[in-house]
């Protein structure tokens, strides 16, 4: 078995030490720093970009907040304007209603007065006609004119009885 040939041990050990040491120095001084630099730079770049993204996100959120605030303000203003207009409208209608009411009331009382007057007039006319009719009827029946005072009294009692 060549592995047990002691005469080759020294050369193998010597060359192992030489090559391993050379590789270690290359690793330690050149390769590892280069790779770790590259990785660190990438990490730094990524962190920077992530930070920037977070900043942008914060800005966007602030913008959204401002927008929503202005939107809410506008909505509130619109609401109050609508409420004002409503109140004004109600007031106006109420005033108009009241005006119309008094006008109508005046007209109503006026017409009621005229109706009452007309009724009274009519009643007066009825009385005159009744007196005339009564005196005429009495004249026909009695053949003689009847005293106007008597007729008037008779009509009075008659109307009173009817009423």
């Amino acid at each position, binding site marked *: 078995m060549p592995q047990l040939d002691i005469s080759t041990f020294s050369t193998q050990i010597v060359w192992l030490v030489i090559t391993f040491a050379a590789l270690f120095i290359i690793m330690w001084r050149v390769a590892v720093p280069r*790779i770790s630099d590259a990785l660190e730079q990438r990490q730094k770049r990524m962190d920077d970009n992530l930070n920037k993204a977070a900043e942008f996100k914060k800005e966007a959120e602030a913008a959204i907040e401002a927008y929503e605030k202005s939107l809410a303000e506008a909505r509130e203003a619109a609401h109050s304007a609508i409420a004002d207009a409503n109140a004004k409208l109600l007031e106006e209608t109420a005033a108009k209603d009241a005006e119309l009411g008094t006008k109508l009331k005046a007209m109503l009382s006026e017409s009621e007065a005229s109706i009452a007057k007309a009724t009274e007039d009519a009643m007066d006319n009825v009385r005159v006609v009744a007196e005339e009719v009564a005196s005429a009827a009495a004249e026909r029946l009695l053949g003689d004119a009847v005293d106007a005072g008597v007729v008037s009294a008779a009509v009075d009692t008659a109307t009173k009885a009817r009423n």
Partner: protein
Amino acid sequence: MRENKTLAEGHSPLAQFEIKTLIPLEVGDINVSFTNSSVFMVATVLAISLFLVMGMRRSALVPGRWQSMVELSYIFIANLIKDTVGSEGRPYFPFIFTVFMFVLFGNLFGMLPYTFTFTSHIVVTFTMALFVFLGVTLIAIAKHKMRFFTFFMPPGVPMYMAPILIPIEIISYLSRPISLSVRLFANMLAGHTLMKVFAGFIFALGVFGIAPWAFIVALTGLEIVIAFLQAYVFTILTCLYLNDALHLH
């Protein structure tokens, strides 16, 4: 080995593990020859350096495929350390990343035909494991001073258990480099030997060689998984030992 000569045209399944000297070198009395093992160690270092450095050449903000692979391997080990050791493990990242890449690329290089798998040699894996073991022990002693030795006596254990427990704990601690190195070496050795044995059957069986051939195709997939898995296991155990060293129990 002579009886193995009938297999695979006279090649022993273990022939692939032979160390072949390419450039004989000696420093003092010590053999430091440049061998096929050294070739693949150097190739591994070059491949890893190329993979990592060229992949990060542009270092784009949005990585391409190559850069993604490099970053993925970095993040994989970084997370492994974070999960097993915690934030205190960060200073050891370059070393652990080196261990992982070295073992991984060494294993994967071995999967190419005609290559040599240096992680299939116990002396290589044991040297690495021993280095990890000694390093971790020194870190523990430097950090906890004498309190380190309480590691062998877990808290809450009754005193009369100590004579049994302490030797067990010490033995299990000392066997760490052995288990760490043997696990990697044995996996590589067994996988490559099995492949070679079955490759020998292909020609020996003629038309019916299709069966071992199909088996080898499946086994290649499995071996690539094992190459990753063993690199991962070696690394995660290193992390766990480091965690023990930094936090004791």
